[in-house]
């Protein structure tokens, strides 16, 4: 699905990721952990093409990111659903419109009953007409997950999806992501919440990656 070959990224004077080689294969489940500022969000941005590696190669769905045209890059992003830490909703649109946004921009019809089913699945039935400012933190995160998956993407990337949630809500969101993985989706969650990772490992065969000193390492039994 997504492959990094000796990929590096950094700013002048600071290297965030150095020579990372990694493959996110189909239906795999990964956690990405590491201290704040280690480069987790940067790694995710590389994966969905918001950033491009300074060196090395990154390919998604068999295509080299550096070779993609702007339209091809947009097409690639439609195959990747992203749950941002701050949700990235459009404040003037309702929850239903925000969730349906990937289909709207893709020019695809939206079946009302399917949209209702999706919102019910993430526990947001009855909140369709609410504006983002009227949603709680948990509702926003679940709405962001609904938007990330409405286009039936192959890969789901989540950046600190439980960062602002209580434990019960975190477990609920995790169970949704695990269910998606069982449906064949590749899932990568960036988090520094080790309890979440430990709990998830009881439910799914998750691989844990840790970013340290610009390197992405496989975490061991200490988790």
């Amino acid at each position, binding site marked *: 699905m997504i492959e990094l070959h000796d990929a590096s990224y950094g700013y002048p004077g600071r290297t965030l990721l150095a020579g990372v080689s990694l493959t996110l294969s189909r239906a795999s489940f990964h956690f990405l952990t590491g201290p704040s500022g280690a480069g987790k969000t940067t790694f995710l941005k590389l994966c969905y093409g918001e950033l491009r590696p300074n060196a090395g190669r990154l390919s998604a769905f068999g295509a080299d990111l550096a070779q993609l045209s702007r339209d091809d890059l947009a097409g690639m992003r439609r195959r990747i659903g992203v749950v941002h830490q701050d949700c990235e909703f459009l404040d003037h649109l309702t929850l239903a419109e925000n969730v349906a946004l990937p289909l709207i921009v893709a020019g695809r*019809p939206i079946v009302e009953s399917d949209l209702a089913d999706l919102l019910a699945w993430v526990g947001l039935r009855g909140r369709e007409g609410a504006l983002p400012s009227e949603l709680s933190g948990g509702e926003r995160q679940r709405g962001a997950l609904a938007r990330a998956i409405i286009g039936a993407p192959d890969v789901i990337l989540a950046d600190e999806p439980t960062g602002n949630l209580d434990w019960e809500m975190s477990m609920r969101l995790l169970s949704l992501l695990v269910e998606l993985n069982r449906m064949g989706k590749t899932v990568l969650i960036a988090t520094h919440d080790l309890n979440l990772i430990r709990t998830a490992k009881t439910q799914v065969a998750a691989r844990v990656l840790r970013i340290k000193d610009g390197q992405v390492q496989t975490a061991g039994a200490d988790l």
Partner: protein
Amino acid sequence: MKPISTRSAAPATFAPGIDRIVPAAGASATLTLLAAAAMAFLAVFTLALAFSANRLADSWSGDLAATATVRISAAPDQADLQTRRVLEVLTTTPGVVSSREIPAEETRALLAPWFGPDLPVETLPIPRLVAITTEPQAFDAEGLRLRLSAEAPGAVLDDHSRWRAPLADTAVALRRIAVFSLALIGGATAAMVTLAVQASLAANGQVIRVLRLIGARDVTIARAFVRRYTLRATLGALAGTTVAAAAVAALPVVADGEFLTHLGFSGREWLWALSVPAIAAITALVATRAAALRRLRDEA
């Protein structure tokens, strides 16, 4: 959970418009509306002035081309004789449709604006005038001049050519000025819409970023702005055109005033006025699309 489908035949679809993704509020939106209305108003008036001036110049030029005047300046005892000879010559001149001596009352009326209504024409050495209606294609002014010089030495033919040339030049100049003015108005409209779109794009950077992240192509993002701003420009232009058309239609008609009588649109010329909103819409569409795509490309 049931996977989301995109069935082709769905009983009910959720279909918010693509232009909904751009926030509706913003000063640039109101400015676009008002500026388009003002530009359309100016465009309609420019068209009205151009058509009026053109029509008037054509009318003057056409009337003068089909008429000529013979002025007979002779001693009082020769005036009647030479006038008769001129009329005789004119009856046998090819291209002359009709001729008549202008009576003293009519001459007095012609001179009234300069000398007042009580002008004693009889006591003044005013030349006799013979008005001729011609068929311009068949009329030979030079040939007639030669014949008149032989038959009536005091007769001078004025075929109005020295008046027609500047009128024709004026008509051409007015047409050019009108076209240039309309081009300026169109250019100003395009520039105004471009600035408004650029301001809107700058103000909606976060919206654009989110749209990109979920896989929106530049052309899709641009379309959202194009629709919104084209609609605003069209609505503004419709309002401006309506007000201008009503103002033109309501202009007073001055009974004896050649120019003011003709100011406005006539017959099919109204179609040009009605085309202003359509032209404004096309201008806004092209300008918005170009500005949006350029900005999106530059930002990437």
